[in-house]
C-alpha cells in the first residue's frame, strides 16, 4: 500500500496537470452541449463526472500496487484480455460513425482499443526490460514488433486508422528508450515514407538520394544495408504499379480508408469551422458558454473530438495556450519520471504511458488547428467519453506508480 515514504514521491506537477485538465474538460463538455439545439446532450457533463469517479478509483488502485507485479506473466495475461476484447469488438461490436469500435453489456459500452493500448505498453515494457537481449540487434525486435502489430491490425480492421497508428507510435518511442539507435528507427520508417512519396517521382528521387547519403554515412553492416536498400526499392517501384492495377472501387475504398473525410464535403468543412471557432476566440475568448460556432455544425463531435476548438473559441489564445501548456507539463513530467526510474521495466512503463498521451494530444490538437487530417481521435482528459477518461487515469496512475517507487531497482 501507499505508505508515507512512497506518497512523498508522487509527482505533484503531473497530478496537478491531470486534475486541472479533467476539471477543464468537464466544464467544456458542459459548455459544448449547452446550446438549445443540443437538448439531447444536456446531461452529458454529469455522466462525465460519474466516469471521473470510476477513473479516480481505477487510477488510484493501479498506482497503489507496486508496479513490478505487472511485469512478466501478468503482462501477458493483461495483453491477452485486451486482444480478446478487440476480437469480440470485430464480431459483436457496436457500430458508431461508420466503424465497429464499441463493446457493450446492456447500457455499459466500452471502447476496448483504449484498454488495449495500456495492456500493450505493459507487455512491451516487460519484453524490452529483458537485459539479456541486445536491443541494438535487429533480429531481437521480432517479439516487440509482433506485440504491437497484432492489436494494431485488429484496430485497423474496425476500421480506426488513427488509433492503430497509436500502437506504432508507442512501439517506436519505447524501442528508442530501450536503446535502439535512432538511425534504425529511421530505417524502419523509410518504407512507409517511400509508399507516400512514390507517386511523385521527383520527391521520390530526392528521398532516395537522401537515404543513400545517410546509409553511406551510417556505415552499417552489409546485410542490413542490403535489406534496407532492397525493401525501399521494391516498395517504391511496386506501389504505383499495384495502384494502377486496382479496380476503381478498390482505389475508392483505400482512399476513403486513409482519409475518411475524403468523400464528405464534411471533413474540409469541419476543419474550416474549427479554425473559425478557434480564430474568432482572439486573445481572451468570447467567454465561457458564450461561444457561437459550437452551435453550428461539428455535429456530434463538438464535445468529443473537437472540444479543443470550443476551448479556443471561449477562452482565446490565453485559455488554449494554458491547456496546451498543461499537456506539455504532463508529458514532460512523464519523461522525467521515466528517466529517474532506476528499474528498467519502470522506466519503459512510464515512457510508454507518456507516449500514448503525446500521440493523442499531438494528433487531436493539430487536427483542430488544421495541421493534421480529421482522424477521430479524442483529446485525452478533455474529450467526453468514459473509456478514454478511465484509460487516461490508468496511464497517469502507472506513471505515478513508477514515480513513487523510483528508488527500487
Amino acid at each position, binding site marked *: 500500500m501507499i505508505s508515507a515514504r512512497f506518497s512523498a514521491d508522487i509527482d505533484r506537477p503531473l497530478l496537478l496537470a491531470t486534475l486541472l485538465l479533467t476539471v477543464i474538460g468537464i466544464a467544456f463538455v458542459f459548455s459544448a452541449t449547452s446550446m438549445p439545439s443540443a437538448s439531447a446532450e444536456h446531461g452529458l457533463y454529469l455522466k462525465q463526472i460519474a466516469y471521473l469517479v470510476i477513473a479516480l478509483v481505477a487510477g488510484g488502485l493501479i498506482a497503489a500496487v507496486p508496479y513490478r507485479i505487472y511485469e512478466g506473466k501478468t503482462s501477458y495475461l493483461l495483453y491477452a484480455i485486451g486482444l480478446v476484447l478487440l476480437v469480440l469488438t470485430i464480431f459483436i461490436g457496436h457500430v458508431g460513425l461508420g466503424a465497429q469500435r464499441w463493446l457493450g453489456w446492456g447500457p455499459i459500452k466500452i471502447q476496448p482499443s483504449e484498454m488495449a493500448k495500456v495492456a500493450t505498453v505493459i507487455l512491451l515494457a516487460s519484453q524490452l526490460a529483458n537485459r539479456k537481449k541486445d536491443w541494438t540487434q535487429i533480429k531481437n525486435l521480432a517479439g516487440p514488433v509482433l506485440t504491437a502489430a497484432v492489436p494494431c491490425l485488429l484496430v485497423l480492421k474496425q476500421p480506426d486508422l488513427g488509433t492503430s497508428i497509436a500502437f506504432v507510435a508507442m512501439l517506436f518511442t519505447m524501442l*528508442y528508450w530501450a536503446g535502439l539507435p535512432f538511425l534504425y528507427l529511421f530505417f524502419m520508417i523509410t518504407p512507409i515514407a517511400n509508399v507516400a512519396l512514390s507517386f511523385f517521382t521527383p520527391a521520390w528521387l530526392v528521398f532516395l538520394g537522401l537515404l543513400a547519403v545517410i546509409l553511406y554515412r551510417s556505415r552499417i553492416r552489409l546485410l542490413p544495408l542490403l535489406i534496407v536498400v532492397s525493401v525501399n526499392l521494391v516498395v517504391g517501384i511496386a506501389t504505383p504499379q499495384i495502384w494502377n492495377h486496382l479496380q476503381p472501387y478498390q482505389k475508392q475504398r483505400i482512399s476513403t480508408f486513409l482519409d475518411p473525410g475524403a468523400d464528405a464535403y464534411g471533413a*474540409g468543412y469541419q476543419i474550416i469551422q474549427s479554425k473559425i471557432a478557434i480564430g474568432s476566440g*482572439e486573445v481572451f475568448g468570447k467567454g465561457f458558454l458564450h461561444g457561437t460556432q459550437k452551435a453550428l455544425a461539428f455535429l456530434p463531435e463538438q464535445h468529443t473530438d473537437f472540444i479543443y476548438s470550443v476551448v479556443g473559441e471561449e477562452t482565446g489564445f490565453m485559455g488554449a495556450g494554458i491547456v*496546451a501548456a498543461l499537456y506539455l507539463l504532463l*508529458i514532460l513530467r512523464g*519523461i*522525467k519520471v521515466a528517466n529517474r526510474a532506476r528499474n*528498467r521495466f519502470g522506466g519503459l512503463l512510464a515512457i510508454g504511458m507518456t507516449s500514448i498521451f503525446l500521440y493523442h494530444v499531438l494528433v487531436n490538437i493539430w487536427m483542430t488547428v488544421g*495541421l493534421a487530417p480529421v482522424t477521430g481521435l479524442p483529446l485525452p482528459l478533455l474529450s467526453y467519453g468514459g473509456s478514454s477518461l478511465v484509460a487516461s487515469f490508468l496511464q497517469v496512475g502507472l506513471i505515478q506508480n513508477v514515480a513513487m517507487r523510483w528508488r527500487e531497482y
Partner: protein
Amino acid sequence: MRADPIALGGWQRRERTLTIVVVGIFALVILRLFVLQVLEGSRYRELSEENRIRVEVLTAPRGEIRDRKGRLLADCVPSFTVTLDPFDKAYSRAPGRLDSTLAALGPILGTDPAVLRDKIQRERKMSFLPVRLKRNVDIKSVAFVSEHRDRLPGVQVESEPLRRYPLGLMASHLLGYVGEISDKELADPTYSDYLSGDLMGRMGIERRYEKLLRGQDGKRFLEVNALGRKGDFLGEKHPVLPKRGTNLTLTIDLDVQRAAEDAFEQGARGAVVAIDPRNGEVLALVSKPNYDPNEFSTGITQERWNEMSGGGNYPLFNRAIQAAYPPGSTLKPFTALAGLESGAITVGTYLAQACTGEYRFGSRLFGCWKHDGHGRLAVHDAIVRSCDVYFYQLGLRIGLDRLADFMSKLDLSGKTGIDLPQERRGLFPDQAWYDHHFGAGRWSRGIILNLAIGQGEVNLTPVKLAQITALVANGGTLWRPRLIRSIGEGLPGSSVPDDSLRRELAISDRSLSVVRAAMASVVSDPQGTGGQARVDSVTVAGKTGTAQNTHGKDHALFICFAPVEAPRIAMAVLVENAGHGSTAAAPIARKVLQAFFHPAPPESAAVVARR
C-alpha cells in the same frame, strides 16, 4: 563492451532528445494558435459573427448522347435550383424559424412545407451541404426568393445543369432517365461517392453508362452574408472544378428509330428492335407506349410516378428487352433449321400427312390456321405458307431433345447481353424443365407440337428474336447487340469491331440458305404471308407470326432482314393484342425498312429543291 544504457542516468541523452522533440511539437501548436487567434483573429471573429462559410457543389453536366450520325438525343441546359442551408445561423439560434421560412416558400415552389421539412431533416444528417428544395424553378420563383431574402435566411438560388431530352418521347426506353438517388442506394457502399439529392441514371443508357455519363462534381467554399453571397472564401481551399461527363455516340439511327416509333398507332403497345446483322449494332429499339424522360429530370411527384409505373399500360416498362412473348410462327424458320441440321428432313422431304386443316395426335386435334388445308408440302412451301400441320409433324420427327438442343445453341433461354439494364431471359423448355415444372411423366409428348410452331411454354424477348433473325441473315453468327458506337470524342463512324461480341455457331450454309430462300418467298411470293413488308427495289426476307396468349387478342409479330443478298438490317416487330402478324406487324416493318433504305431527303434540302 557497450555502456549499459540501463545504468542510472543512462537515459539522460534520450531524455534530452525526446524533450526537445516534445517542446518543438507544442511550440508549433502555440505558433499556430498565435497566427489563428492573434494575427488573424479579427478576421475570423468577423466570419463567426456575420458571415458563414458554405460549401457549394458545382454539379458536373452529364455527357451528351447522340445518334450514329451525330444528332443530339440528350444534353444539359442551365437551370435554377432553390436550396436551403439548414446550418444557417438563423436556424441554429431559433430552430422554429425554419417553419416560417418553409411556410413562405411552400406555395411558391408548389410543394407542401411538411414534405420540404422531412427532406431537410433527412439530408442534414448526411452532409453539411444545402438541401435542394426544388430543381428547375421558373423565373417567378427566382424573383420571389431574391426579393424576400431577408425573410428567407439560408435560401439560395443556384444554377445547375438540367438533363434535357430535346426529342421528348423519342427513344425514351433506350435512353432511360435521371432521378434522385434513393436512401437505400445512399447506404450502399457502391454509391459512396454520391451525396443525398444527387441525380443518377435510371434505366436505359443513362443507367448502364452512369459511370461515364456522370462526370465528377466540383466544389468551392463560399462566404455568404445576410445579403446573399460575398464571393469565394479566400482560405486555403481552392475550388475544385467539375469534370463534365463523357459523351456517348450510339449505334442508333434516328431516322430508323423515328420511323419505327411513328409506325405504331396511337395507344398501341409493342416493340421494335432493328440490328445490323454484320456487327450487332442496334439501329432502333422501340417500346410502346413511351414516356417523356424530361419529366423525371426535375423530380416527379409520387402520384405521377404511380401513374407511369402502373396505369394499365406500364409506360416505363421496356417491352423490347423486359417482356418475353410466345414467338408464334416467327419460330418456324428456326424449327426448320433444327430439322435440316439434325437430319430429320432434307429440302425435298415431304411429311407423311397432307395438311387438311387439322392434325390428330392421340385423342387431340391440332388445327392449322388455314382451315381448308395446305395439302402436301416440303419445307420451303411450309415456311412460305406457314403451315402448322407440317410443323407439328416436323416437331415430332425432330423430338423434344434434339429441338431443345438446337434452340439452346441459339441460346434462346439466355439473355442477348445487350448493354441495357434489366434484360429478361427468354425460355425454350427442355425435358428437364418439364420434369421440374410439371413433374416427371406428368406431361404429354404433345407439347412438342406447340413448341414447333412457337406456342406453349416458349417465350422470347423482341431483342432475342431480332438477334436470331440477324443470325439467319449473316450466316450463323450470334452477335451480342450493342448500343455504343463510340465513347468520348471519337468520331461517329469510327466504330471498332469487337470480336468478344460475336459467337460463330456451327450451322451449315446449306440449311441456312434453304431457310433464307423460304423467308424471301414469304415476302415476294403471292402465296406468302408477308407481302405487306415489300419495299421498292429491295429484296426483303421475313416471317409473320400470330401468337395466341392468355391476355386477350393475339399478339402480332414479324421478323425480317434485307437486302436478302447482303443483309444490312435485321428486325423483330411485336404489337400486343393486335391480331395477325401479316396485317398488324409487317406494315410497321415496311415503314422501318423504307426509312432505312430510302430515307427522306433532309427538310432543308427539300425546301431548296422546291424553289
